[in-house]
């Protein structure tokens, strides 16, 4: 056994807490290692000196101060006792349910935690798929609600309400044929230019829907407002819709066409081809 190991065990040796085997090993080492012997002797001296130190006694004044403090605390809690809240009563009863000994308290909390975790895990495993279908279902319901609101608003007499209808339809995740049809109808037939412009913006969001692109190209020929025409051309160019080329060529042929729209349509043709 090396000196280092001996010194680790020296405290236990002095306290007499070493087992038979370790004790004999230490004794053998000490017999032929003067350095360790010396170290142990000095340690032993300190040990004995610590043992003879007088025990610290609290002074009389400390005792008085402690009891004064305790009195003051008691008075304070007596005042509060008059207004016991629901929380306090609850915690009192919970406290009575709690075992008195700390070890049992810990044990109880561990059991509760384990039960919570286990239960939660089981529940989540069982209901994760159910919850997912529920979320999709809710999302679908919200979408349905938006669809109904959008379509009914788009049929109102007030242009402001129809604008609101367009902005509702833009919030629908999967618009479905009815909303797309209503939006295209708004784009083609709404008497108000502003509502038609808003419809172009909303249809922009759904351009990957099969009917939208064809509907937009078809609509170009029927529009009378230069602003709506420009807006449609911008959109068709933006989504690189090559099938729009023919419609643009036809539009340019129109003699009554606004010269600015004509310019934009010609530029659009070069951008698309």
């Amino acid at each position, binding site marked *: 056994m090396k000196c280092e190991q001996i010194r680790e065990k020296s405290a236990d040796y002095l306290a007499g807490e070493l087992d038979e085997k370790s004790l004999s090993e230490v004794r053998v080492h000490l017999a032929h290692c003067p350095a360790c012997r010396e170290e142990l002797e000095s340690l032993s001296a300190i040990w004995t000196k610590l043992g003879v130190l007088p025990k610290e006694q609290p002074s009389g004044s400390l005792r008085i101060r402690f009891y004064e403090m305790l009195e003051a605390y008691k008075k304070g809690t007596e005042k509060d006792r008059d207004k016991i809240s629901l929380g306090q009563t609850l915690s009192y009863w919970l406290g009575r349910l709690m075992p008195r000994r700390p070890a049992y308290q810990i044990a109880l909390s561990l059991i509760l935690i384990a039960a919570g975790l286990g239960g939660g895990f089981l529940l989540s495993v069982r209901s994760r798929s159910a919850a997912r279908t529920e979320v999709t279902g809710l999302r679908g319901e919200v979408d349905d609600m938006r669809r109904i609101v959008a379509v009914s608003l788009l049929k109102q007499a007030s242009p*402001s309400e129809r604008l*609101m209808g367009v902005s509702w339809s833009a919030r629908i995740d999967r618009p479905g044929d009815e909303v797309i049809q209503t939006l295209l109808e708004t784009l083609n037939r709404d008497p108000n230019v502003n509502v038609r412009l808003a419809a172009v913006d909303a249809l922009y969001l759904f351009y990957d829907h099969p009917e939208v692109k064809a509907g937009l190209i078809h609509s170009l020929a029927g529009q009378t407002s230069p602003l709506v025409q420009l807006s449609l051309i911008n959109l068709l160019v933006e989504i690189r819709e090559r099938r729009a080329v023919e419609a643009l060529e036809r539009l340019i042929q129109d003699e009554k066409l606004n010269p600015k729209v004509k310019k934009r349509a010609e530029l659009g043709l070069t951008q698309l081809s």
Partner: protein
Amino acid sequence: MKTIIRLAGIMILLWAAGLADNAQESQADHAVVSFSNPAKPGTVEVDISEGSITVRGYEGKDVVIDARWRERVLTKEEQEQEAALAEGGEELDQEELARKKAQAEKAKGMKTIEVESMGLTIEEEENVIQVNAEEGKRAVDLVIQVPFSTSLRLSCRDDERGVTVDRVDGEIEVETSDGPIVLTNVSGPVVADSSDGEIKAVFGKVVPGKPMSFSTMEGDVDITLPFDVKASLKMKTDEGKIFTDFDVQLKPSQQKKEEDERKEGGGYRVSFEKVTLGLINGGGVEIQITTYEGNVYIRKAK
């Protein structure tokens, strides 16, 4: 209840009186129409091709209409037709030419008196009052007084003078082709469109929740809003500029919006928005503005 007032008859008398005075330049009409249910806010619809519309809110229950007819102005088509007739009718088809020639023959040596079907039609049905001027006749300047809460639908085509509205709190829908649109002391949702005219709107307050929209091809859009308005602006202009003294929180003009909800069973959507989105005081009423060449001015009311 349906009331129809035809002012043509009165017009003839007035015109006859005017002829006697040899002062046929302007003739005035006056009509007072009440809503069938005055307790509820009504709607006034005006559709004229040539002329101007001025609407003012006042503390009354009836709608008071004053019309002033301008000197007869030939429409472009009529001018072309007359020119064609003078040149021997080359531009006209045979049937039309024959008819015109026959008419000219009959009227030889006589002068024209324009009395027939010149007038205004006013109808009231289910709290909606419609005012129409017959197309292709003389231009008319209308001054209409309405209760403050009235909603308006005004359309004025082919004229430089446009539409003016003051102190009306209802919803306002206006369209003009060349004339300006000037709205002052309004608060309801406004939806305005002009091809070549300027649109100016000064709001005393803004009713929350209802979207508004302004569009013009060549004119400017100039809007004054209360300093504490909560608004979400959606502005689109091809060649114009946007000015404001509001502290507008701007979003980038070309925004790529990506939504991936596939994990939660939703969809995937990528969209590009080629508009300028700006929030005033955190956002609120949706205001859409579209111009091609015109500038956009969003002013803070002082």
